[in-house]
């Protein structure tokens, strides 16, 4: 067996049960032969019944229905169907003796799905089987005793007209196999097989319906055998019962006049021949029954009687009795039912197919809306002085791709107004857009706060950037690359680095720098730098004394040079001369500066 993939299904025409319902006997025996003679051992018989739903169906056997239970929706093109969990259920019982199929032929199912309007049927619960089916059907069913089940009751003739033929029953029942893991299609069923019974009737919009799964086992009294083709008689299908329509008022004609039944009778007297079977006389409810002509037809009614079937007070009982005789009811064994309402504007397909498709700006000419080929329409505005005028407007939805306005950010809606050159009329599309944006933003308090925060943040970062630029200019502070770095920290680090590298302090209040930078130690500059009283003091400080610059005469005329320290220290004269020079140098220093 091929397993379908998720999302796929395989359809089968039928699945026969291996054993149909019934009573079975199983005989077990052993054949023994001893020396050619048979000595059969005693066998044993086992009896068992194969049963299945026949007059009742447990609710858990139903896997799904469509249209959904108590559903409201556009079901007017759907064919109702019911999916049963057991794959062989519709073929477990024979439809009737006349409908047995061979081993290779399609068997006839015993289930049918009938759809009624709510007014066409009544559901009755817990009736005895003998009250539901006619006696001969009961006999053919095998006369099971003590069965109580549900039934649906409807007009017998009506049932005959809507029930499918046995050949059609075969076509309306099939088996579907889906992947057990498919959540959408398998719906929790364990083996993925469903038996599906379809209905042959399509709902109409605006009506309430009840769908009934009925058992038509042995119901040859109700199942039609001939097809209701277009040719053939339509009034008297069954020669035994004359179908006489009930009193209805004529529907209002399309011209607006209303003709009631009794009035209509005055205009036309129908000759009797029109009512003979075979005449194509429209019996779709437009006929009044108050006619008093002679009715002669191949019916069981006596001719030449004035027959009135209207419900007058005098004839109430007669009317009801005749009604029952004329409209006998039939019951069918009901296995499952559900209701739904058909309403709504149409199925998805119908609505989509009925859409008016176009680009924006496509309007019906009948609507008299003037749209230019660029998509603009005229709207009435009042200008600033209060006078009414007409301007052009086009929304953001346009029919052709447009280029983007590159004129930079706008700051007011007036900037966005345009004027049409030929007529002088204004085009306020973009100005309107600006105002809408402004109003939407102003309505949102949080956005206003965020905008201010954004601007403040921008201003702050802009101020910081200006400060950094100034520092770079004046302080040669080039280390700040990222404006987000903390500036004060960088600045102090930079200064410290410069200081510790030994660069001279930038200030020189005493002019020492300048003094040292001059080529000679000029006495004037020295006097100024060290605040000496006279320049002569500076000269003496620098050691430019006349006495100090002369050569020192040493007495003794010693010729031998002094070669070691002992000789130097024993040279008393020379030592005295040097001491005197030293004393003079000290005296020069002490006097002018007062410094020790």
């Amino acid at each position, binding site marked *: 067996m091929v397993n379908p993939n998720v999302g796929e299904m395989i359809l089968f025409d039928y699945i026969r049960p291996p054993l149909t319902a019934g009573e079975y006997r199983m005989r077990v025996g052993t054949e023994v032969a001893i020396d050619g003679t048979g000595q059969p051992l005693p066998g044993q018989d086992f009896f068992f019944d194969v049963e299945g739903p026949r007059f009742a169906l447990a609710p858990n056997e139903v896997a799904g229905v469509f249209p959904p239970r108590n559903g409201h929706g556009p079901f007017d093109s*759907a064919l109702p169907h019911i999916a049963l969990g057991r794959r062989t259920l519709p073929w477990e019982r024979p439809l009737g003796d006349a409908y047995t199929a061979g081993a290779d032929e399609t068997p006839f199912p015993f289930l049918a799905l009938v759809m009624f309007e709510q007014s066409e049927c009544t559901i009755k619960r817990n009736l005895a089987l003998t009250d539901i089916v006619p006696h001969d059907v009961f006999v053919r069913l095998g006369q099971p005793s003590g069965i109580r089940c549900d039934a649906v009751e409807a007009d017998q003739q009506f049932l005959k007209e809507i029930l*499918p033929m046995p050949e059609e029953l075969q076509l309306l029942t099939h088996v579907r196999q889906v992947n057990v893991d498919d959540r959408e299609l398998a719906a929790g069923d364990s083996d993925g097989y469903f038996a599906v019974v379809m209905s042959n009737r399509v709902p109409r919009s605006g009506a309430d319906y009840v769908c009934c799964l009925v058992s038509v086992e042995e119901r040859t009294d109700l199942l039609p055998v001939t097809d209701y083709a277009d040719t053939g008689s339509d009034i008297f299908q069954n020669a035994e019962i004359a179908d006489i329509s009930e009193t209805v008022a004529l529907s209002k004609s399309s011209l607006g*006049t209303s003709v009631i039944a009794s009035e209509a009778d005055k205009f036309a007297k129908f000759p009797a021949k029109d009512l003979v079977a075979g005449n194509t006389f429209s019996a779709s409810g437009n006929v009044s029954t108050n006619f008093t002509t002679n009715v002669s037809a191949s019916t069981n009614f006596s001719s030449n009687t004035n027959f009135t079937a209207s419900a007058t007070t005098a004839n109430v009982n007669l009317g009801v009795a005749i009604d029952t005789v004329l409209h006998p009811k039939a019951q069918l064994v009901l296995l499952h039912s559900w209701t739904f309402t058909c309403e709504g504007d*149409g199925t998805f397909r119908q609505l989509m197919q009925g859409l008016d498709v176009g680009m924006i700006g*496509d309007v019906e000419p009948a609507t008299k809306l003037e749209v230019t080929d660029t998509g603009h329409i005229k709207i009435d505005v009042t200008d600033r002085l209060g006078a009414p005028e007409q301007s052009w407007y086009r929304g953001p*939805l346009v029919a052709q791709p447009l280029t983007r306005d590159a004129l930079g*950010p706008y700051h007011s809606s007036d900037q966005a107004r345009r004027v049409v050159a030929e007529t002088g009329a204004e085009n306020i599309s973009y100005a309107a857009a600006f105002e809408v*944006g402004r109003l939407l933003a102003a309505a949102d308090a949080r956005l206003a706060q965020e905008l201010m925060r*954004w601007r403040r943040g921008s201003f702050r970062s802009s101020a910081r950037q200006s400060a950094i630029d100034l520092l770079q200019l004046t302080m040669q502070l080039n280390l700040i690359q990222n404006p987000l770095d903390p500036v004060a920290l960088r600045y102090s680090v930079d200064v410290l680095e410069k200081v510790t590298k030994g660069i001279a302090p930038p200030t020189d209040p005493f002019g020492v720098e300048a003094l040292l930078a001059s080529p000679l130690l000029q006495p004037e500059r020295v006097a100024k730098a060290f605040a000496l009283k006279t320049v002569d003091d500076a000269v003496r400080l620098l050691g430019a004394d006349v006495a100090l610059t002369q050569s020192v005469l040493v007495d003794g005329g010693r010729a031998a040079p002094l070669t070691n320290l002992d000789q130097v220290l024993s040279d008393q004269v020379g030592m005295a001369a040097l001491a005197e020079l030293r004393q003079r140098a000290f005296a020069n220093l002490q006097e002018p500066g007062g410094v020790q």
Partner: protein
Amino acid sequence: MRLPATTAREALFTRLKDPAQTSVLQPDGDLPPYMESFLSHLRLLVGVPFEYLIPDDRMLPPESIRFFYVDRSWTDRLVDGGLAVGQIGSREEAHYQARGSALHQLLDQSERMVRSLQRGTDFYAAKAVSDADQREAKLITGFLLRSSAVKQWPHMDVRAYDVTIAEPFETSSANAIGHQLKLLRLELLAPSLMIALFETEPKMVILEEPHHGVQFGVRHVGSQLKVPLRDGHGQQIVKNGRAVQVTVPTRKRHSDVIRVAALRQALIDAHAANPTAVVQEGSGSFAISVLDPPWRQHFEGTEDFADTGFPGHNLEFVNVTFTVQQPLVLSSVKTVLGVL
């Protein structure tokens, strides 16, 4: 003793490491997230009153769909207007003049994340995704659909493709996904009004009914019932852009009851002219012929292949000449007109 799943300390630690927490120290001058989100939504016309989109009701009649391009200048003016709040002096104007074009470029990228923001994605996660997409701003197109189908099927599937793909195709196939356009916005402005915005121009847009299991059905065409021919896989057979319809014979006195055996015969006859149709062998092939799968509507090209015969919303239209032919009404009409 069982260890707890988490401790208070760990919970606090995780919470503090959340990206939204750590990026509080925003560099000055960057867009606050709320502002960026608000302006991106404005760019896709979220919150703009409907009268500004469709100034006159006659431009979008009931049961219609209108396709459009979005005018980027209009949406730029929306953003300009939004930023005009608080512009009280020349300092703010100068600031905006300097920042305006950079802001618009930033929003060109941020508008791509609006849909994930609408679905509740965290701002920073969404922004990371949209920042990764550095393409320049593309054309924005879309449609407005006003129909009761929106009210009844609000979760219909909307997809746009930049090529025309013929049926049958799976929307989840790699080829289809490769050609699918990014959906920037899909919303219901009113119960029966839907707006959708796509990036770049589509060649084909599909609207698909949500899936609902297996259904069987026929189609109403005028006053008749018809069934489209299907092949063995349930696909409609299409000839010259139209489905091949087979008239469903109905019973004489009950026009809502189908003559199933006669329909089968009609399908067999149609098979002779269309050999690809499913061969009618039994109930399985009959079931395939009356299958009603979820409908996928294509909008492509410039020709309209819709069914003729859809009667419209209310099916009450009276065929005047036919009614008057009936003898009873004819005679009453004659009397009214004074002829009889």
